[in-house]
C-alpha cells in the first residue's frame, strides 16, 4: 500500500484483510520459514561432512558478503553467496530477505532493494546528464549507467569513427530527461531513426504528455533501446544501443515499480495487439507502456521533421490513449499490492476494470484495489487447487 493513498471504509478494510489472509495461507509453510532478517543465523546442513573452515592467509582477506567457499578436506560442502557473512563459524544474514539454496550455494534474496544488474538484462533508463562522449542514465541502481557515444548508432547509419562534430551533436540524439530502453540481446547494427527530441522539464510531464499532444505542442518523448554491455571498473554500468529491434519508444508512460516484482523472463517486450500498445517490463523496475511503434519504419527525412503541422495530424488516437492509461493504472494497482507483474496479470486486471465498468481514474481508488486483491486471491487458490488436483 505504498504509493496509493487510499482511505478504505470498514467493509473494504475487512475484505482486504480477508483477501490478504487468504494469500498468506496459500503459501507453503516452508517458504515463510525461509525469511530472515539481519543477523539471523542461516541453518546450513552440516551432516554431509565435518565442516572444516580453511582460512586464507589472514582473516581480513576474506571479505564479508562475497562468495566464500567452505572446503572440507577434498570436497566442497557448501558456499555462501550474497547477503550472508561468516561470524564465529556460522552463516549469518546481512540482509532482510528470503534464503535461497541452489545446489550448494546459500544466499539471501532481498525484496525491496534496488536493482541488481546483470549483463543481458533489458532495462529502461532516463538520461540525466550529457557528459563528454557519453550519456549518463538513471536506472535505479547504486550508480548511474553510462551509454557511450561510440555504442550508439549514428543517425546516418554509417559505421565510422566518432568525430568532434558527432560529439557536439549528441544533443540531437538524446537530451536530458529522455527515456531510453536498454535491452541485452545480441545487437544488430541497424540505424536508428533520427527524430527531433525535446526534453521535458520535469518527470511529472511524462504522464501528462499524451494530453499535451492534443494541443499541437511539439513535445515528444523518444525512447531508445540500449544494451547492458558490461561493468566498468568502478562498478557502474556500461550500456550499448545498437539493436533496432525495439526501435524508439514514443508516446507512452514510464512507471517505476520495485524491481523485485519484475521477473527475468525470455520476453520483456510485449506487443498487445488488441490495444495497439507496447509494453516493456524493464528488469530494473521501470516499465514503459506506450503506443505501438512499427519496427523498421523508414527514416524520416530532415524536411519532414521540421514540418510541425504534419506532426499535428499524427496524434495517438483517443482509444489507444485510454488503453495506455488503463494498463498503466493496472500496473500501479498491482505494484501497490505487491503482486509479481506478468503480462497476463496486467491484461487481466485491465479487462476486469472494463467489465466492472470502472472508470480509468477510479482504478486507483479503494474499491478497485480491494477487488483486485480478492481476484488475485481467488486466482492463486484456483491455481493451487489445479496443481494439487493434477498430482
Amino acid at each position, binding site marked *: 500500500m505504498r504509493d496509493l493513498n487510499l482511505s478504505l471504509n470498514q467493509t473494504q478494510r475487512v475484505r482486504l484483510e480477508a483477501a490478504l489472509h487468504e*494469500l498468506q495461507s496459500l503459501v507453503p509453510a516452508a517458504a515463510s520459514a525461509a525469511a530472515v532478517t539481519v543477523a539471523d543465523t542461516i541453518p546450513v546442513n552440516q551432516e554431509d561432512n565435518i565442516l572444516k573452515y580453511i582460512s586464507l592467509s589472514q582473516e581480513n582477506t576474506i571479505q564479508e*558478503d562475497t562468495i566464500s567457499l567452505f572446503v572440507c578436506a577434498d570436497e566442497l560442502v557448501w558456499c555462501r553467496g550474497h547477503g550472508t557473512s561468516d561470524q564465529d563459524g556460522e552463516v549469518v544474514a546481512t540482509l*532482510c*530477505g528470503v534464503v535461497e539454496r541452489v545446489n550448494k550455494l546459500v544466499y539471501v534474496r*532481498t525484496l525491496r*532493494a534496488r536493482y541488481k544488474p546483470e549483463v543481458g538484462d533489458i532495462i529502461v533508463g532516463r538520461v540525466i546528464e550529457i557528459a563528454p562522449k557519453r550519456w549518463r542514465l*538513471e536506472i535505479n541502481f*547504486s*550508480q548511474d549507467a553510462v551509454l557511450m557515444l561510440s555504442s550508439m548508432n549514428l543517425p546516418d547509419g554509417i559505421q565510422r569513427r566518432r568525430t568532434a562534430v558527432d560529439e557536439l551533436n549528441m544533443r540531437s540524439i538524446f537530451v536530458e530527461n529522455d527515456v531510453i530502453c536498454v535491452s541485452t540481446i545480441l545487437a544488430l547494427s541497424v540505424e536508428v531513426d533520427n527524430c527531433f527530441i525535446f526534453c521535458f522539464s520535469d518527470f511529472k510531464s511524462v504522464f501528462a504528455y499524451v494530453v499535451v499532444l492534443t494541443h499541437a505542442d511539439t513535445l515528444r518523448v523518444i525512447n531508445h533501446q540500449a544494451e547492458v554491455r558490461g561493468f566498468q571498473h568502478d562498478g557502474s554500468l556500461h550500456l550499448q544501443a545498437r539493436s533496432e529491434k525495439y526501435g524508439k519508444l514514443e508516446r507512452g508512460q514510464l512507471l517505476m515499480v520495485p524491481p523485485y516484482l519484475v521477473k527475468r523472463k525470455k520476453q520483456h517486450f510485449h506487443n498487445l495487439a488488441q490495444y495497439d500498445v507496447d509494453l516493456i517490463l524493464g528488469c530494473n523496475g521501470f516499465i514503459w507502456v506506450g503506443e505501438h511503434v512499427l519496427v523498421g519504419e523508414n527514416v524520416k527525412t530532415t524536411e519532414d521533421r521540421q514540418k510541425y503541422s504534419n506532426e499535428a495530424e499524427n496524434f495517438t488516437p483517443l482509444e489507444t490513449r485510454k488503453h495506455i492509461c488503463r494498463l498503466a493504472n493496472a500496473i500501479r494497482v498491482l505494484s501497490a499490492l505487491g*503482486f509479481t507483474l506478468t503480462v497476463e496479470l496486467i491484461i487481466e486486471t485491465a479487462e476486469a476494470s472494463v467489465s466492472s465498468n470502472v472508470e480509468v481514474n477510479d482504478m486507483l481508488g479503494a474499491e478497485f484495489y480491494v477487488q483486485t486483491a480478492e481476484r488475485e486471491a481467488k486466482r492463486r487458490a484456483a491455481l493451487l487447487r489445479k496443481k494439487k488436483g493434477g498430482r
Partner: protein
Amino acid sequence: MEYVNPLTGFRVDGRRPNEMRQLKAEVGVVARADGSALFEMGNTRVIAAVYGPREIQNKGQQVNNKEALVRCEYRMAEFSTGDRRRKPKGDRRSTEISLVIRQTMEASILKDLMPCSQIDIFVQVLQADGGTRSACINAATLALADAGIPMRDIVTSCSAGYLCSTPLLDLNYVEDSAGGPDVTVGILAKMDKVTLLQMDAKLPMDTFESVMGLAIEGCKAIATYIREVLLENTKRLECQRG
C-alpha cells in the same frame, strides 16, 4: 518532585523503573524512499527515510572511493515539542545528533559492498517526548533493513537514567528534564558490541555500570521487537508477491 513513588515504586507515568515505554514500528511508510520506517517509543514518534545506494551527488564529499558515503540528517518538526520550534535543523543540537546517528549506523553498514555510491538517512522527529536520539537510531535501522542495505547487525538504542537513587529505563521528557544523568547506549544487538555511549551529568562508576547494564537490556528487548517486525514484513511481501 518525586520521580519514583517511594510507596508504590511507580514512576511519573505509571511505569516501573525497569519498564520501557510501549514500542510500535511500521515499515514502508514513505512511498518514494528506498526504505522507510515509523518508530514510536511511548509518545516519541520518529520517521526515518533512507535513499540509496545511489549516485554520489556531490563528488567533493567523497573521501574514500572504495566505500559508500553515508549521510545523515536529523531534524525535529516544528510541531514536535510543546512550544513551536523556531529552528528545526541547523542548530547545534541537531548537527550533533546527526553526526551521532551517522557514526552509529556507519559501524553497522557494510560500506565496501557499495563503492562509489551514497546512502542518505533522513530522520525527522514528529513528536518529542524524551529519547528522540534512541528512537531515531531504531527507526534508521528499520529503514536501512527495509531498503535492503547490507548490515552487520541490527543497531538498537535505548536510554536510561538515575533519579531518586533508582536506575530508570527509557526516560520520558519529564524525567529527562529533571537534570539527572541520562545515559544513551547504542549496541549491535547480536554481536553485543557498543557503538554509541553518551551521558549527561555525572555518575559514580558503579552506579554507571548498573545504569548502562539496564540500558543494554532495553536495547536487546528493542532488538527482539525490531526483528519480529522485519521478519513479518518480509513474510508479508513474499506472500503477496506470489
